[in-house]
């Protein structure tokens, strides 16, 4: 069975898949890759299903050693990945296309030049135990993934058996690069979203149950001002600063369901954008929700950067999501055709 070694862990590297959608009634967070689009593309490029586990790296990437020849794909944030062989030859690696990494190579991921979260998919998937129907790391509850925690130097991860398409892609690419021994790049790539601009990004939102509780100036500020992503931001949620929003109406709320993308407003007036590891319920007013089509962009935002919100209707939000899925499906089908030739 194939394995990889973690030489250096990076800031917050975890094993993730698409999460635990069916356990929220038990208080279990959804979890899963924050940029699920990048995660899915990386998987599909190596012949995996979207549900296979990848490694999600945050801001600063890992260094990983490959024991055997392995088919991989790198998507999401640009961490300037390079491959180093035993003679210490350095080769920059392309993102968003399948690559065959020769046995004994190490891949070094640096600090992200753009975006925040980078995904490494390996044909066969990261083979950690399935807990509650998922391989995702639940960091706060410390289960799932690799030992319920972030990866650390010295960890060894098992790789599953590649699917038939993954095996064929690997054979084909491996034969093509046999004489150089270096991964060859494709003249195409599949990138689900453009990474957000590092200074200012826009997230589209729909109204929440309590948007109408905002004061007139609070609503204007929500839609017209720039918010800063605070350094106190993680997989559970992003704290937004620089703008305080006030409510016109106040009431104690009972805990109700929340989802990734929900904008909660705690009493201090600084909104919190909930991400995939948030608890499935919350008791603060819900003043909006980032639309599903923009959650990948949200996942790629960096602490310290500025964002704005733009309001769309629920119908528009769902149309955007379906368009995004259709384009992705089409691009992945094209990629499959290219790989067969």
């Amino acid at each position: 069975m194939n394995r990889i070694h973690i030489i250096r862990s990076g800031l917050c590297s975890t094993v993730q898949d698409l999460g635990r959608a069916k356990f929220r009634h038990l208080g279990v967070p959804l979890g899963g890759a924050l940029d699920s689009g990048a995660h899915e593309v990386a998987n599909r490029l190596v012949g995996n299903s979207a549900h296979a586990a990848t490694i999600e790296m945050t801001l600063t990437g890992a260094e990983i050693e490959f024991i055997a020849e392995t088919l991989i794909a790198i998507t999401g944030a640009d961490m300037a990945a390079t491959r180093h062989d035993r003679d210490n030859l350095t080769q920059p690696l392309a993102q968003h296309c399948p690559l065959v990494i020769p046995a004994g190579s190490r891949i070094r991921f640096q600090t992200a030049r753009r975006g925040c979260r980078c995904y490494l998919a390996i044909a066969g998937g990261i083979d950690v135990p399935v807990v509650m129907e998922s391989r995702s790391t639940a960091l706060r509850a410390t289960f799932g993934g690799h030992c319920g925690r972030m990866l650390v130097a010295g960890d060894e991860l098992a790789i599953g058996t590649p699917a038939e398409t993954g095996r064929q892609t690997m054979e084909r690419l491996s034969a093509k690069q046999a004489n150089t021994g270096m991964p060859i790049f494709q003249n195409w790539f599949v990138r689900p979203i453009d990474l957000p601009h590092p200074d200012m990004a826009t997230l589209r939102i729909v109204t929440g149950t309590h948007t109408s509780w905002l004061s007139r100036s609070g609503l204007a500020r929500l839609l017209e001002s720039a918010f800063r992503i605070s350094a106190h931001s993680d997989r559970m949620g992003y704290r937004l600063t620089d703008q305080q929003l006030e409510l016109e109406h106040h009431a104690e709320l009972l805990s109700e369901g929340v989802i990734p993308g929900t904008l909660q407003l705690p009493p201090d007036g600084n909104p919190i954008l909930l991400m995939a590891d948030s608890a499935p319920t919350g008791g603060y007013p819900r003043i909006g929700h980032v639309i599903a089509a923009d959650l990948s962009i949200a996942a790629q935002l960096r602490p310290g950067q500025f964002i704005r919100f733009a309001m769309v209707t629920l119908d528009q939000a769902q149309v955007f999501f379906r368009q995004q899925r259709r384009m992705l499906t089409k691009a992945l089908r094209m990629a499959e055709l290219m790989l067969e030739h």
Partner: protein
Amino acid sequence: MTPSIEPLGDSAAIVAWRLLDDATAWQAVQSATEYFDRNRSDGVLAIAPAFKSLTVYYDCEKLTWSEAEKWILDSLRFVPITQQTPRRQLDIPVCYAPEFALDLTAVAAAHDLHPDEVIRLHANANYVVQMLGFSPGFPYLAGLPSQLHTPRRASPRIQVPAGSVAIGGGQTGIYSCTSPGGWHIIGRTPVQLFNLQRDSPCLLQTGDAIRFVPIDRQQFADYTERT
């Protein structure tokens, strides 16, 4: 009574009985959750109950909002009105010793009670698990005597040990995992509320009836050693 149906972003909906009293709303939520969950249609991913509401998660690639709303409306017509009695009665041992009960004296002082009186009141009440939330297997319990209702701590603790029994407002609960928390800690149970080694990782289920049984340090240590 017809509940309100509201979008929760573009991929979920909240069905809420906010105007009903606590007990009636809770019954409505339980009945609807059970029926919805058993009759999920294609595109409906999961149902999760809260106190007076439930959340329907759907795949917005497959269902539009109007389709999801229609499914909810149609389903609501068939929800049977069932008078549910608590499914199970469980005793949870709690050690109220000072090293575990970090806020017991503060809670006692807030109500002008002796700490022993707080323990007596807390351990003599009957509770019902209203929902699981906050962290995996964390039970929100109804039934806290009104003499013990205590507003949450002004600043939450960064780390509350797993097993801590706590009071937050009019509710009591048990921290199922070590996590940050703003409730007042008045004891600790040696019982594991969330344990993946068990077939069903969460010890408690919504609807369970709970009693707290005081134990001393020795019993706490014995229990911990046994498990």
